[in-house]
């Protein structure tokens, strides 16, 4: 057996601690006035004893939540941050791709930008000059060499940046997730380039929290949490583990807080923004009904019976509501309307087709539960609970529009609003038509 090639990257027990001055001296004046006072520093351990390796030609994913240390990992690999302990061995020329076209200046023409970027990525000045034509050709921008790049379209910019990256002959590429932000078309362009790089046989390390990208491209993945390695292995398994971790209870609280802080939501509906997080009653102005029955509470439960606002895709869930009947009513309809955040009704479960419910005496309290598997596509939804008279939406007892919000998380890629399980078979037809075609 021949001697195996060394790994492209071997990370051997590295640790990285940041010192964050809590009240530190930021000026020479302060330092001069208090020459012997050591500024108080808070030590933040960002990476603890991380070890892994990447095989030559491998597409390797590093995943983790925000604050898990994955960006620090990327920057230590890239040589931007020094490390405190351990060692990183790199076999081959490495280029970092944290941002599209580092050093690009919108007011300069392609030539200057390519020269800057290529030299930043590791080429010598003469080498960069020699490859300029090839880079432009690769980017299919030959006719636009003299145009300031601020006048380029986003597609042209992506092509130029990727062309430089490919022409610097990096054998190892470090790619950050921030690359793939932007509109869908831009993302697709980046993904197309990833695909091409992957097929070219380069070793790639992709740092991301987008599990779908990891599952799509990576051969192996590493899961980081609080600066330590949780697992290394098959992207599918890592993906599941990541989701588990992400949607443990406290993670959900974080996500919910994120949603609350997300200014984009204001655009969807002013009412939505007012809905409180715990799923408690929102006495919104759209509430209507004659009050014969009152929805005193309503919530969403996950499979464990916990009240949630975030649900992993495909898991069982329950819409529950508690109704106090103030008058005696016969055969009421308990319903829940699920809308997308664009206001399109997706799903409207109720008891219209079920056997009549019978008589509910005034002064009683009942709880209705609608249970199903959440095959709503990952995304944001708005829920409206309601109770009304049998077979008629004209007499609302109580209806509370947009009382809840629901975030379905997951990695399925679909443009639809529902994604129930399905099968897809391709067979060879045996009838006459197939033969004649």
């Amino acid at each position, binding site marked *: 057996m021949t001697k195996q090639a060394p790994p492209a990257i071997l990370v051997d027990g590295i640790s990285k601690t940041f010192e964050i001055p809590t009240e530190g001296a*930021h000026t020479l004046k302060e330092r001069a006035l208090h020459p012997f006072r050591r500024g108080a520093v808070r030590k933040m351990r960002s990476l603890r004893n991380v070890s892994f390796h990447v095989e030559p030609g491998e597409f390797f994913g590093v995943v983790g939540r925000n604050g898990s240390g994955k960006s620090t990992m990327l*920057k230590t690999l890239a*040589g931007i*941050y020094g490390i405190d302990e351990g060692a990183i061995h790199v076999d081959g020329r490495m280029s970092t791709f944290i941002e599209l076209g580092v050093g690009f*200046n919108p007011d300069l023409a392609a030539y200057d930008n390519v020269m800057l970027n290529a030299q930043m990525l590791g080429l010598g*000045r003469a080498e960069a000059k020699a490859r300029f034509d090839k880079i432009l050709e690769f980017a299919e921008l030959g006719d636009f060499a003299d145009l300031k790049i601020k006048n380029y379209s986003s597609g042209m910019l992506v092509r130029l940046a990727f062309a430089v990256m490919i022409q610097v002959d990096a054998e190892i590429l470090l790619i950050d997730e921030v690359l793939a932000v932007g509109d869908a078309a831009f993302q697709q362009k980046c993904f197309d380039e990833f695909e091409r790089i992957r097929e070219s046989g380069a070793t790639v390390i992709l740092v991301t929290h987008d599990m779908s990208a990891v599952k799509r491209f990576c051969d192996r993945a590493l899961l980081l949490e609080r600066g330590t390695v949780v697992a290394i292995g098959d992207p599918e398994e890592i993906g599941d583990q990541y989701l588990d971790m992400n949607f443990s209870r406290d993670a959900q609280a974080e996500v919910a807080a994120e949603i609350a802080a997300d200014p984009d939501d204001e655009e969807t509906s002013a009412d939505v923004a007012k809905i409180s997080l715990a799923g408690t009653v929102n006495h919104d102005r759209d509430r209507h009904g004659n009050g014969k029955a009152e929805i005193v509470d309503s919530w969403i439960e996950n499979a464990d019976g916990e009240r949630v606002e975030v649900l992993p895709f495909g898991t069982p869930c329950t819409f529950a509501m508690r109704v106090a009947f103030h008058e005696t009513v016969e055969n009421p309809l308990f319903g829940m309307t699920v809308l997308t955040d664009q206001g399109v009704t997706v799903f409207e479960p109720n008891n219209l087709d079920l056997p009549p419910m019978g008589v509910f005496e005034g002064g009683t309290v009942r709880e209705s539960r609608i249970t199903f598997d959440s095959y709503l596509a990952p995304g944001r939804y708005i829920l409206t609970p309601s109770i009304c008279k049998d077979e008629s939406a004209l007499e609302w007892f109580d209806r509370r529009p947009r009382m809840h919000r629901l975030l379905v998380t997951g990695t399925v890629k679909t443009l639809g609003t529902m994604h129930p399980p399905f099968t897809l078979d391709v067979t060879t037809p045996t009838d006459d038509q197939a033969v004649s075609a």
Partner: protein
Amino acid sequence: MSAPETTAEGFHVKPVARDFDAIDRSTLKPPIKGPSALGTDFRRMIGLAWTMATAEFKLRFYGSVLGYFWQLARPMLLFGVLMVVFTVVVRLGNDVELYGPTLLLGIVLFTFLGDATGGAVSAMVDRENLVRKIDFPRMAVPVSVVILASFNLVLNLIPVLIFLLASGAEIRWTWLELPFLLLLLGVLCLAIAMILSALYVRFRDVRPIWEVVLQAMFYASGVLVPVQAIQAQFGDRIEQILMMNPFSAILQQARHAMIAPSHPSALACAHHWYVLLIPTAITLALLIGGFVYFNREAPRIAERL
């Protein structure tokens, strides 16, 4: 060894991942070191600095047709004002041969010192998006600032020479000293630039402090009033003290070489050769100290920004 597995899409061949502990450590390259001042290749660093400087230069001049004249406007305006003050109002300059070119040369050289060092102060911080995103030899930043300032210096020297010839100065062999003197000045500027750019990352009041220091140096280094004009009044001692300032020594020698032989050389002003060891020692100390400090700070600049 099992055959490598091909994934469903494309031609990518999935490599077989070894067991981490089973990897043969003997074939590993030495560990990477993180960011450094010079990087692995000195020429690459210089090349990068040159590219950064030319890009910056283009940005400054391609935007406006009159870019060059705007560039000249600042030193020329200052020159005009000072010329009037020192020849009409105070009349200190009237004893000096070719006072006009003498003053202009001083202003131009001092402008270079100011551009190179003042520009270096925030250079590292201004390039935060580069420094935090890519590992390149950090020294390229102060070097590029000094290169950019020397482009401007060359442009500014053109009117000085025209003015000099128009005032009746002769072309002399000693003009050949100028490139060496400029190189010396460039080294001094680079030494200061290294210190300031690294220091500013930690201490933000370096900028106002340096502005004051520059202002003081402008008046105290003989730019306005050449030594021979004050020598009569204050004696030899003042010349000697002035020559201890490396910038003043370079400026004095440049005037001697460029303007007229009646301007005493740096050595003549210092009276003894060993006095000139002081500015030499200061320059060397700044250069070595600056490099050591910059080199020490370089690995941590990205995380301190």
